[in-house]
């Protein structure tokens, strides 16, 4: 609640700055945004119910809000800022996410969803202002809004079935209830980019600024997963239909993501499909959790945390290096060894090679799925990981092994201290999450304790 207020205050302060005609001082806007985000991070705590029961700030909320804020930090640091508007939109989106994470009411959830998404649509366009980014924004807008409308319709059905809109189990399980759940889940699945609701995602990642794509791939996905978890917890008994559908969605998602990533020549688009594939693995974890009905294990949070660092790192590296197309990668390792090395570390983590966070995350997902008797699905996921190796290592190969193509690639950047700090901030946790297997137990405990 406090962090929500901090974010809103920061937002209003920026609006006031803008109205006061102090626009053009981009650095001060950036400072306010970063400060607001850091302050909001400090204010995170599981404080329980608030706002007449509309909000419930539990361990989940706090953990997820931490992810949102950490994901927003590099965006705030890296994104171009001609005036306050981008910062305002970012803070607005963050506030929406925070609201989503702690909402205890379906309509508040909707408002959070829209508050998160609408500034997102605008940011896609406004950070780049190209024809492509506008196209991506429009596509994203239509798909997001349609899904939101489906969510709303589902919520109305749920209201009809139970008479309640609180985010707590109400009434006996019925067909209408489960049906409404399925409609609502569409919005969540769309936000995380599950197949076949993923089409907007590669377009948006390709056309928007890389740092924004990084933000989407981490914060928006985390929000979507939390959204999905909340929905799955809604009926008194876990939905049979969702249990049936989830592994299929997961399998299709990871397969489509990985296979389509194989043929991409735009780096951002490749990462977009890779993020779709990762959603597939995440959904496998979600399914495993629905199967055995235990309290949520740390696996999903660990996956999101690991993905937070590696995806942010990968997109930040794209942004800082200015690389866009596959051809530009050739020989990049020789030209800019440190940045290429960092990129390679992120890719290894994405490919889930130990000792990186990506490995440990996938490891625990597999573990959970096997505990849930899902050996067949785990094999699908394992096969997909192999396909993933194909493009992640092609990338590394292009950077490290291929001869340099001088005119194609942008010059090696001179990184400022802050930018270097950002990269270290991604690399160190990525490695740390890979070498300390206790993090899973710790996260599980964290989620449980704050309940």
């Amino acid at each position, binding site marked *: 609640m406090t962090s929500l207020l901090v974010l*809103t205050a920061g*937002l209003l302060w920026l*609006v006031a700055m803008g109205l006061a005609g102090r*626009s053009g001082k981009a650095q001060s806007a950036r400072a306010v945004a970063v400060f607001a985000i850091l302050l909001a991070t400090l204010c995170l705590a599981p404080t329980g119910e608030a*706002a*007449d*029961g*509309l*909000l419930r700030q539990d361990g989940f909320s706090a953990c997820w809000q931490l992810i949102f804020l950490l994901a927003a930090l590099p965006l705030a640091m890296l994104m171009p800022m*001609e*005036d306050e*508007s981008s910062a*305002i*939109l970012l803070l*607005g989106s963050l*506030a*929406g996410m925070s*609201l989503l994470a702690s909402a205890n*009411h379906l*309509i*508040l959830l909707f*408002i*959070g969803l*829209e*508050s998160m998404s*609408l*500034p997102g649509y*605008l940011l896609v366009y*406004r950070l*780049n*202002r*190209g*024809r*492509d980014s506008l196209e991506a924004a429009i596509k994203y807008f239509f798909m997001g809004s349609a899904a939101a409308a489906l969510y709303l319709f589902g919520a109305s059905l749920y209201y009809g079935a139970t008479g309640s809109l609180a985010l707590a189990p109400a009434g006996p399980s019925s067909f209408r209830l489960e049906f409404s759940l399925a409609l609502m889940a569409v919005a969540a699945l769309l936000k995380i980019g599950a197949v076949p609701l993923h089409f907007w995602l590669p377009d948006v990642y390709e056309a928007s600024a890389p740092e924004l794509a990084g933000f989407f791939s981490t914060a928006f996905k985390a929000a979507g997963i939390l959204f999905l978890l909340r929905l799955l917890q809604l009926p008194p008994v876990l939905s049979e239909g969702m249990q049936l559908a989830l592994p299929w969605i997961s399998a299709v998602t990871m397969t489509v993501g990985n296979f389509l990533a194989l043929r991409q020549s735009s780096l951002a688009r490749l990462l977009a499909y890779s993020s779709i594939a990762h959603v597939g693995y995440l959904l496998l974890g979600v399914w495993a959790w629905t199967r055995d009905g235990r309290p949520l294990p740390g696996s999903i949070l660990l996956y999101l945390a690991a993905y937070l660092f590696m995806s942010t790192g990968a997109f930040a590296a794209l942004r800082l290096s200015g690389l866009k197309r596959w051809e530009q990668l050739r020989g990049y390792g020789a030209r800019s060894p440190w940045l290429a090395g960092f990129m390679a570390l992120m890719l290894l983590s994405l490919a889930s090679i130990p000792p990186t966070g990506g490995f440990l995350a996938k490891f625990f997902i597999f573990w959970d799925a096997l505990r849930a008797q899902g050996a067949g699905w785990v094999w699908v996921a394992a096969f997909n990981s192999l396909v993933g190796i194909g493009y992640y290592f092609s990338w590394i190969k292009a950077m490290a092994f291929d001869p340099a193509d001088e005119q194609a690639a942008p010059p090696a950047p001179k990184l400022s201290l802050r930018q270097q700090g950002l990269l270290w901030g991604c690399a160190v946790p990525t490695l740390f999450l890979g070498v300390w297997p206790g993090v899973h137990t710790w996260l599980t405990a964290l989620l449980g304790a704050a309940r």
Partner: protein
Amino acid sequence: MTALLALFGAAAVAFAVLMLLQRSLLSSALCLLAVLFQIAAMFFVLNAPLVALMQLLVYAGAVMVLLVVAVMASGTRLSGLWEGFSARRLWPLAVFGVLLLQFIAVSLLEPPASGSPGVSLDREAAALLFGPYRLMTEAIGVLVLLVSLSVLPDPKAEGPSES
């Protein structure tokens, strides 16, 4: 009441179908307007006069105006708006006129009594909006503030051209 609901419902669906089928943007918009009117009528029948009013004001009024402005601003020439609006397709307009009259008649025939459940519900709703639900109201306030940014002029007149 059920009969009325059925009537308006059928009309709403009919107009929605029309909206889908119209090739012209403007006639589609008008069909949507008709649907919104029917829904407003249903709200009215369902004892929610305030919502019905808001429906008319915000949707049929503001949103539709916005739409029409957008249609015009999106560069379609006015004559273009009527493309595909041939004389043969004038019948929807006729139906539309009939239903509008019907709606006005209904609203005139049954004015809501002050003690009716609908009115008290509206009052309670207002209390909710500014009571327990105030967080939502505030959030929407901020949201509207945010989206208003979308109409701010670009600081850079022309975005970086795509290379």
